[in-house]
């Protein structure tokens, strides 16, 4: 290759796009240390003039529900992720490794259900939650999110390529199928398990529509829904919105930095055809 793209031009594009990507985040982080007056004052400086921790102090000590929202979000997303890891892996294992009647049709059914748009399910699920008494409880957020068709599929692909002789050796040692699965197979599938866990946590943590429909007590809100409370009829408390948003974004950003490779693998599952 003699003639390459002008390199400088490429870096200019990359840097501009990086700036456009980062600006809203940086703005929110810095604004969360500004006073309400400074935020709405319309200044263009990113850095706060008189940095203050008051917005955070207000959220953590004076807001009656904010701390509960953090716990709710952690609990709901964490629990859903835990169930996803176990249930998706079990289903994927059965579809890959065990032979039972109706297996093929079940597998095709799961593939077909990936296509169903969520909108159709919202109203009937609301009525089902209402009938079984789960409305306005965290179960209404956890249970429907406890499995994921794409990850069942991913686990099936993983277990199909998994060496059989390890399981056979364990079976000779007298371990039952469940023991083999939880003590030997799952620990060896660590990377796939981590990917599923993270992606499920992320999806439930960020979810807005389901909590909006199913949860009515402010005490039980998750963070994305709780943030809307700072936007009342008369005014939007931008200082609290920014601090609350930063707290909503932080756990995800930390996970992303620390466990980057699993995120990339996870989004590739969504991306593969």
């Amino acid at each position: 290759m003699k003639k390459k793209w002008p390199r400088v031009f490429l870096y200019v594009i990359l840097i501009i796009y990086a700036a456009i990507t980062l600006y809203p985040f940086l703005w929110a982080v810095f604004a969360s240390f500004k006073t309400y007056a400074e935020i709405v004052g319309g200044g263009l400086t990113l850095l706060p003039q008189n940095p203050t921790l008051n917005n955070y102090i207000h959220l953590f000590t004076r807001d009656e529900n904010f701390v509960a929202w953090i716990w709710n979000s952690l609990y709901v997303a964490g629990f859903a992720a835990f169930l996803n890891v176990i249930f998706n892996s079990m289903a994927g294992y059965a579809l890959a490794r065990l032979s039972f009647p109706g297996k093929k049709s079940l597998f095709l059914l799961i593939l077909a259900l990936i296509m169903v748009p969520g909108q159709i399910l919202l109203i009937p699920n609301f009525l089902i939650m209402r009938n079984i008494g789960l409305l306005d409880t965290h179960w209404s957020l956890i249970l429907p999110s406890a499995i994921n068709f794409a990850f069942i599929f991913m686990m099936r692909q993983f277990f199909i390529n998994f060496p059989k002789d390890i399981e056979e050796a364990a079976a000779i040692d007298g371990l039952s199928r469940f023991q083999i699965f939880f003590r030997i197979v799952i620990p060896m599938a660590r990377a796939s398990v981590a990917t599923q866990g993270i992606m499920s946590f992320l999806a439930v943590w960020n979810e807005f529509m389901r909590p909006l429909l199913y949860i009515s007590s402010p005490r039980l809100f998750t963070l994305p829904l709780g943030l809307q409370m700072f936007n009342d009829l008369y005014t939007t408390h931008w200082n609290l919105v920014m601090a609350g948003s930063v707290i909503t974004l932080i756990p995800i950003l930390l996970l992303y930095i620390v466990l980057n490779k699993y995120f990339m693998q996870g989004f590739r599952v969504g991306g593969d055809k």
Partner: protein
Amino acid sequence: MKARTREGIQGYSFMIPALIIIAVFTIVPIGYAIYLSFTRVNLLAGTFEWVGFGNYEIAFSDPRLRIALRNTVRYAVFVVPAQTFLALVMATVLNSGVKFERTFRTIFFLPTLTSSAALTMIFMFLFAVNGPVNGFLVEWGLLAAPINFVEDVNFALNTIMVMNVWSTAPLFMTIYLAGLQDVDKTLYEAAAIDGANAWKKFTKITIPNLVPVTNYVLLMGIIGTFQIFDQAFIISGGSGGPMNATLTVSLLIYQFAFQVRGTMGYASALAILLAILIFVVSMIAKRLNKEESLY
């Protein structure tokens, strides 16, 4: 017990948690949604009155549905091509052997991970009358006076469009990047020998080789944009305002199901129609893309 029977029982015991959840929260609801769409629901009295195709007939003459459809289609017609194009360009730039590729990719990806609720709130202030976007535009002399992007009928939907392109393009960029890595490198080398420039290589090799990826990206884009809800809900406080400017089909379904009394059956009919619409549009997009790839 026979080994076959035992394995069958094991198979179902491994499947049972997933099967219960699929049955209760997916299979039953699909049937339930279809049933609801033929009824008039009175939640307080607990009655479901059969109205046949009544709800569907109403839908075809509902002026608000027409507005919601127009907004949703306008939204999709801008967002899907814009985010696909941006994703392809950024993936190509990242894939051209630049330094710090990983760092840039890690940064670009941030918006895709983060909560749409938090991001919409942040954008609402960035685009507010006294927010920094207006501040810069006025200071640089591009605007005489600040525009109320969030509450002006002419700008509210566009603000959501810009935000959505910003937040979903990186996901498709990653998918394109994976696709680019599969393109046969020798094609580029052969083209270079024939004296093709970068633009020629992009249009004659990169784009044709990425057609299956583009198919997938367009499909996901259409499915996503047609279901747009969170941003429209948050920016308008659930009303679809100002003056129905941010009223999307999903938001309309929400309003009829949970804000207006007695129209849950009608909302179900709209949800079914939306699903059919998404399916049809996706199929058309797939077909068009295939025909184009023949060239």
